[in-house]
């Protein structure tokens, strides 16, 4: 039995549920520090509309099964947060996925955005594209989309590895505005030199809160912060105890 994992999940669940009950509907909204990677995205949607282009959103090669499932869901939050604004501006994004399980979800998010605006007949499922199931082939295909389509900005949010540099390189060659959010250290290492507006690690999971300002997202970020403080205190306590036990020869 994995006691450590059960304890962490129980603690996280308790903190999240408590936050949802206590601050889910009442009280002032929690504040979130601004993240340039997500702040500029709506402005980019406006710019895309003015120039008759579109934003390219690369969701990476993760899917809904496997270890990248939650990272991919965080990437979908970016699509969800941007879809309404992009549809309002008549500049729907081009979304590329590297795992077909993300395809129906991304298409559904875009379709619902059109329906909310009463423009269901304008919805084009071809705006969401499955490129390739292998990470490097996906990156090459997504780079091709960024190069050949009328794209004005390149957004990468989801599960990537070092191959993401193929997409950023294509964007840099066209002098596109580039934004990215990634959790994997290899992807962060590849993105850091190429992109100035980069959300790193846990910041990827703040996309929904940052872009929509919805309470459920903001509250879960607060729960995340509380858990981090608890974990840091536990680590410091354990380190202190280990130091003392070595020092006193216990």
């Amino acid at each position, binding site marked *: 039995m*994995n006691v450590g994992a059960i304890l962490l999940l129980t603690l996280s*669940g308790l903190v999240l549920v408590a936050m949802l009950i206590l601050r889910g509907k009442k009280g002032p909204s929690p504040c979130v520090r601004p993240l340039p990677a997500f702040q500029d995205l709506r402005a980019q949607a406006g710019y895309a509309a003015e120039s008759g282009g579109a934003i390219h959103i690369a969701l990476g090669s993760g899917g809904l099964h496997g270890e990248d499932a*939650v990272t991919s869901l965080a990437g979908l939050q970016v699509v969800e947060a941007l879809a309404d604004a992009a549809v309002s501006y008549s500049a729907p994004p081009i979304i590329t996925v590297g795992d077909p*399980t993300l*395809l129906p979800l991304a298409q559904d998010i875009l379709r619902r955005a059109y329906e909310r605006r009463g423009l269901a007949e304008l919805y084009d499922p*071809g705006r969401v594209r499955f490129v390739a199931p292998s990470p490097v082939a996906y990156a090459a295909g997504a780079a091709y989309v960024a190069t050949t389509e009328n794209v004005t900005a390149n957004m990468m949010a989801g599960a990537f590895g070092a191959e993401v*540099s193929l997409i950023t390189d294509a964007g*840099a060659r066209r002098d596109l505005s580039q934004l990215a959010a990634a959790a994997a250290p290899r992807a962060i290492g590849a993105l850091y030199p190429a992109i100035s507006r980069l959300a790193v690690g846990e910041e990827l*999971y703040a996309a929904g809160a940052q872009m929509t300002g919805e309470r459920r997202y903001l509250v879960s970020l607060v729960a*995340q912060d509380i858990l981090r403080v608890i974990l840091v205190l536990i680590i410091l306590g354990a380190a202190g105890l280990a130091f003392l036990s070595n020092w006193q020869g216990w």
Partner: protein
Amino acid sequence: MSSLVKRWIPVLLFGTLPGLVVLAGYLIPTSQTLTYFRDCLVEWAVIVAGFAFFLGMFNVLRIHGGRVAHLRKGWLCSLVLLLAALAAWVPSVLPASTTIQKTLDHVTFDYVISPLGASLAALLVFTLALAAFRLLRARGSARGVFFLLVVAVTLLGSTPLANLEWLADIRDWVVNVPGMAGMRGLLLGVALGTVITALRVFVASERPHSEL
């Protein structure tokens, strides 16, 4: 009542409950009942994911077929892609375990897919090097210079060049002390973000599939 039936019952039955069973099956592997249900649910998920590949294939045919049919920009590349996809299908429709099927499989994977994948992966070196130069040009700040210095020390410290052994010690320190500390902090944050997002799906606060 209708809201309860329409909104919560499907979420609880098809989302939260199976999720909890699978999670419990992994956390308590000693329970045979839980592991049985866990394996069943995971098997169903794999079947659904298999159908998603059909969706992906039709999406590729729709996008690239449309481009070829209307001779839109890039139609030649799309045509090559469709022909390559068709050629990759040939071995799988031939009678299984025949010599020709095995040879075609071998040729496709060993002489086409693997070398192409390796070539694309090799390109990463150049794209990363270009990104590093762009970093210096666009953001010639102290942080940029420091980043490149660390990259150079780490790479050179990994090479077996003579008279550069002292760099290997610096590289080991950079990787094992500040590098590892940063990595652990990053992974801790990612793990917390992952747990909280997954729990939001469990308690139906996050519903990427529906806005009900």
